[in-house]
């Protein structure tokens, strides 16, 4: 009989827990939907993501096909965004370019999250490491990001992967700092002391107790890193130090467009709008998330 009762209460407990989790999720979704910035941001990002993925469906032109007779055509029914100085279709170059630009941004976001998380947690937990790691971060952050990126790409050679590496080196310290300061706050809490006193291992404390609390500031920061990665990639490509030539990327199209800016405004406007949309979408999404996840700034802003 007794065993039965416990099973029942256990089931009841689990059911209740599930319900509570569901309710919390629903609450988060409701709050998310009522946050205009987050919603508009996600709509923009979804739109850009879909057009990037669906590029082969949306356009019948390839981004590389040069038709000399079609050079510098203004936007028309056939070439929606016009053509460039090699007669390539800008619409398809912008679409395929968004694949490159978004992929670079996303890879940088993921890589900086992982590196920033590990470095930030180690620095927060081990005092000696903290000094060394944070001085290195200070040093890397003292560079104007784009200069360091240019230098790294110059060393490694222009290749999308190298652009990702350069941007990861440049932006990881920032993420590490955010993780570190979030982790330090948790580390000072009494319950971590209590856990230590009970003999919990360092790894257990770091991964079970400190890490979860660093996730929301990390996500917020990485959203901004994503945006900045798109900007710097575009700038690098615009300087001719990013994605190598025939491949489309938003920055490359701008680079080609600059020489003909007098005659072909469409080569500047369309990729430009895409960059602005992507960065705006990410910034809105980041600000919205910050309002949702971080009650302190939320109060200060309202």
């Amino acid at each position, binding site marked *: 009989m007794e065993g039965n009762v416990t099973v029942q209460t256990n089931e009841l407990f689990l059911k209740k827990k599930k319900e509570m989790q569901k309710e919390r999720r629903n609450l988060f979704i409701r709050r998310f939907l009522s946050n205009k910035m987050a919603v508009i941001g996600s709509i923009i990002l979804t739109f850009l993501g879909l057009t990037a993925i669906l590029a082969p469906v949306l356009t019948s032109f390839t981004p590389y096909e040069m038709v000399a007779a079609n050079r510098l055509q203004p936007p028309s029914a056939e070439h929606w965004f016009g053509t460039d100085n090699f007669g390539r279709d800008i619409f398809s170059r912008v679409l395929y370019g968004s694949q490159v630009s978004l992929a670079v941004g996303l890879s940088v976001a993921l890589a900086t999250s992982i590196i920033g998380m590990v470095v930030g947690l180690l620095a927060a937990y081990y005092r000696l490491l903290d000094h060394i790691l944070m*001085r*290195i971060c*200070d*040093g*890397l*952050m*003292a*560079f*104007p*990001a*784009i*200069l*360091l990126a*240019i*230098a*790294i790409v*110059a*060393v490694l*050679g222009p290749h999308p992967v190298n652009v990702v590496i350069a941007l990861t080196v440049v932006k990881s310290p920032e993420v590490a700092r955010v993780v570190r300061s979030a982790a330090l706050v948790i580390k000072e809490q009494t319950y971590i002391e209590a856990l230590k006193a009970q003999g919990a291992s360092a790894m257990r404390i770091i991964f079970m107790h400190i890490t979860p609390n660093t996730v929301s500031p990390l996500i917020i920061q990485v959203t901004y890193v994503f*945006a900045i990665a798109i*900007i710097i990639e*575009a*700038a690098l490509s*615009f*300087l001719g*130090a990013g994605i190598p030539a025939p491949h489309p990327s938003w920055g490359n199209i*701008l680079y080609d*467009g*600059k020489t003909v*800016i*007098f005659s072909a*405004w469409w080569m*500047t*406007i369309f990729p*430009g709008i895409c*960059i*602005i949309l992507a*960065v*705006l979408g990410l*910034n*809105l999404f980041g*600000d919205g998330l910050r309002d949702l996840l971080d009650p302190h700034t939320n109060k*200060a*802003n309202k």
Partner: protein
Amino acid sequence: MKAYTIKRLLSLLPVLLVVAVVVFFLIHLAPGDPAAVMLGPDASPQDVENLREQLGLNLPLYQQFIAWFSGVLVGDLGMSIYMNQPVLDVFLDRVGPTLSLAILAQGISIIIAIPFGIIAARKRGTLTDQGFMVFAMLGVSVPSFLLGLLLMLLFGVYLGWLPIAGYSPLSEGVWSHLQYMILPAISLGAIQAALIARMTRSSMLDILSTNYIKTAHAKGVKERLVIYKHALRNAFIPILTVLGQTFGTLVAGAVVTETVFNLPGIGQLIVQSIVRRDYAVIQGTILIIAASYVLINLIVDLLYGAVDPRVRFNKK
């Protein structure tokens, strides 16, 4: 205060060392031999080897680093192999446009952003506030080089009001200088302005809800004075931090903005030097920029004391 300043100055050394090490090894790991680049594709291997020896490029890397860094410590940044001039001279030659660009951009952004931030804070929640903030959101989302291209398209190509690229030094007249600088400065300053406006707004909102603002109202202080005397000076402390931090963004943006507008500044110098494999120039200029960035942040920290008497007290 003096001891604090010295302590802060000393703490800059490790940061600068990291910067120096990173720059040096990064540049020297680059494929491509400056000797070969300088002599061109037709040079014989023997000539290249001789030049390498002459430039010290055949020594082990760490020896080259020590030689270079000990020079840096006494203010000698080395020679530009391409221009055959001391790096410091090359830098000083080209710093004018960049400095002018940075100062104009920062000036424009401060003049626009702080009043806008204050108005937005005072009219919090109204249409005006929301309008300003949407504008600021757009501002931080347009990369400066892109804004440069768009402004160039509008004012240079479409309206034809301003020259689209080039440079005229200040010594040849303020007006022609400004004609060339105004678009670059606006495109570079826009992001700053947006950042500063947002910071000003949120900082003002914090301050306007404090008790001492209530006291000021209770004393019968005029609304305008409450804002400009009592609130702004307090709100200025976090704004100052943003000003310092965004200087880095400004310099970074200047590199690309100079390329967009064809300004012969430091940004172009660095990009050209990378192509020319002019190691000493790249190292030297990046080191100076990084150092000035760190220094500016130090100055900002010291400025807190001027704005906030509590800081003065604590650090005595």
